C-alpha cells in the first residue's frame, strides 16, 4: 500500500485514520474507461484536505467513492477501520457519518431553508420538534436564521450554499465532503463559505475533504492531494510543480 503520511500536516500525525483508501480502482464501460487507477491514501480525523486536478482526472470519482455514492471496481475503502464493502446499510451510514456539500447546492426547491435542513434528520428518528429546533440552530450557525422560512429561489447563491452546509451538518457527521463548494459563487460568497469551513474545521473538529479547481480554496486546506489521469501524484515536490503549472 502506498504511504502518503509524509504529506500529512504535522498536527494530525497522531490522529486516528478516519478514511483509508486501499488500492482502489474504478472503471466504467466494461473496463474500457478507467476513472481511478490503484489509488491509496489516508485521511486522519480532523484533517482539512483539498483534492485538486484537471478536469477528467478522477477527482469527482474519488469523492463519490469516499462518500459511498459509488462502489470501487477493485480495492477497498475503510471508515474508522471498517470496510465499507461490508456495510449492510450504506444509506444509514451516509446519513450519520458524512455530510455533502455540492457545487449546485441541490436544495429541494419546494421546501423552505429550515425544511431543507431537516431532510437528513428523517432517518435518525428525531421528532418533528427536535428536527425543527436543530434546523434553526444550524441556520443560525451559518448566519441564515433570518431567512429560515424562505424558499431557495428567494435566496442568493451564497445563501443557498450556506443552507446546504447547514443541511450537511444536520446529523453532526464527523466527515464533510464538498465538491467545488465555491464553484458557483461570487468571490464574497465564496470567502464566506471558506470561512465557514475554517470554523467547522478548527472549532468543531470536522474532517473536511474539498474538491476544487481553485488555488485560493486549496490554500485553506492543510494538505493538497493532486490527482491526474486517475492516479495520485506522489511526491510533495511534484505536487508543487503541478500547482505552479496550473
Amino acid at each position, binding site marked *: 500500500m502506498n504511504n502518503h503520511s509524509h504529506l500529512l500536516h504535522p498536527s494530525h500525525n497522531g490522529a486516528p485514520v478516519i478514511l483509508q483508501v486501499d488500492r482502489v480502482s474504478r472503471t466504467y464501460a466494461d473496463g474500457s474507461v478507467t476513472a481511478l487507477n490503484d489509488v491509496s491514501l489516508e485521511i486522519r480525523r480532523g484533517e482539512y484536505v483539498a483534492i485538486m486536478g484537471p478536469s477528467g482526472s478522477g477527482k469527482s470519482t474519488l469523492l*463519490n467513492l469516499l*462518500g459511498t*455514492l*459509488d462502489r470501487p471496481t477493485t480495492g477497498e475503502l475503510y471508515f474508522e477501520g471498517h470496510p465499507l464493502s461490508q456495510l449492510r*446499510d450504506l*444509506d*444509514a451510514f*451516509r*446519513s*450519520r457519518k*458524512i*455530510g*455533502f456539500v*455540492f457545487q449546485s447546492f*441541490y436544495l*429541494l426547491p419546494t421546501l423552505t431553508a429550515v425544511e431543507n435542513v431537516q*431532510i*437528513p434528520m*428523517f*432517518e435518525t428518528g428525531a421528532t418533528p420538534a427536535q428536527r425543527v429546533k436543530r434546523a434553526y440552530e444550524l441556520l443560525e450557525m451559518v448566519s441564515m436564521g433570518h431567512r429560515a422560512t424562505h424558499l431557495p429561489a428567494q435566496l442568493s447563491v451564497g445563501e443557498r450554499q450556506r443552507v446546504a452546509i447547514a*443541511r*450537511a451538518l*444536520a*446529523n453532526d457527521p464527523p466527515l464533510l465532503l464538498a465538491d467545488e463548494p465555491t464553484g458557483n459563487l461570487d468571490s464574497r460568497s465564496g470567502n464566506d463559505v471558506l470561512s465557514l469551513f475554517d470554523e467547522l474545521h478548527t472549532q468543531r473538529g470536522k474532517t473536511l475533504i474539498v474538491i476544487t479547481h481553485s488555488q485560493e480554496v486549496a490554500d485553506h486546506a492543510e494538505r493538497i492531494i493532486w490527482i491526474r489521469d486517475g492516479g495520485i501524484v506522489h511526491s510533495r515536490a511534484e505536487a508543487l510543480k503541478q500547482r505552479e503549472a496550473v
Partner: protein
Amino acid sequence: MLTVIGLAVAVGAVVSLVGVSTGFKDSFMKIYESRDVDLVVTRAGGNEALNSGLPEQLGDPIAKLKGVKQVVGGLVDAIDFRDQGLLGVILNGWPPNCPLFGELKVLHGKLLAPGDEHKIIIGRVLAANLGKKVGDKIELYGSEDFEVIGIYESPIVYENGGAIVLLSELQRLDNKPNEISGFTVSAVKPIDDQSLDDLAERIKELQPGLKVTKSKEFVNNVQQIKMSSAVAWITSAIALIIGAIGMLNTMIMSVFERTKEIGTLRAIGWRRSRIIQMIIGESLLLSIGGAIIGSAAGVALVKLLTKLPIASGIVSGEISTGVFVQGFLVAILVGAAGSIYPAVWGANLLPTEALRRK
C-alpha cells in the same frame, strides 16, 4: 392536475355507474324486503322472469299450504310513452282485493275498486312525467284510453314511476286470460332456511313446471339487473384502466424530472424505502384528491340524471356508502399500481447517476 381529473373521471364512473346499478338492484330488492316476501313463484325455464305466465288459480292452493302467511299474484308488463321519451314504464295488474293497495298513499283521487274498467291509477313520478292529473286520459297499447282516477305515492321507486290497472284489465289488454306473471309468497315467521326450502319444495309439487326462488336470489338473477351490474363494472373497469395508465405516466414523468432531487435525497442518506414511500405517498394523495372530486361529481351526476323523466321512475338517486368505499378503494389501488414501478425505479437509481442527469 390532469392526472387528478383522469382519476376523478374513473372514480366518478365507479360511483355513478355502480351506484346506479346497485341502486337499481336495491330498489328492486326493496319491493320484496318491504313486503316481507320470502319466495317468488314463476314458470320454470322462462327467460324473462317478469313475464313467465302462470294460472291465476294457482294462488289458492299455495295460500292453503302450511307455513304460508300471504300470497299475492299479479300481472306485470312494460309499456312505452315514446312521445314523452319514457320507455319500459311498469304497468301492474292487481286484483281488486290485493293487499298491496294498502301500501299506497293516495295523493289525488282514489284507488281502484272492483269493476273499474278502463280506469288507471298512476304514480306521482309518472303523473309528473306525463303531465297528467285526475280525470285525464292515458292511451295504453296505442288503442285504448284509460281514465286516471288516482295519483299515488308508493314506498317502492318503481311503482312511483309506473301505473296500476285491475288484473282483469291487464289480462284483457295482454290477451292473457286468467294468467299472471308470478306469485310472491310471504311465510309465517319465524322461519329458518331449511323450513323455507321445504316450503319451496311443497309449492313446486303443486304443479309441474314451477320455479320457486328465494327473493334475494330472484332479484340477483333478474336479467336486467345482471346486465346493468355487468355494464356498470365493465365501463368502470375501462375508466379505471385509463386512470391507472394516466397515473403511471404522471408518476414516471414526475420521477424522471426529479432524478436530481432523488439523487440528492439518496446522497444525504435517505433509504430507498423512504424514497419509495415518498413517491407512492404523493401518488396516493393525488388518488384521494381524485376520489373526492370523482365521488362528488358522481353523486351530482346521478342526482341530475334521476331527475330526467326517463330515469326518475326507475332509480332513486341514492348511492350507498358501500359504493363510495369501493370508489375510494379503487382510487387507492390505481394510485398504488400506477406508482410502484416509478417509485422502485427512482429509488434504485445510483446517487451518482441521478445527480449526473440533466
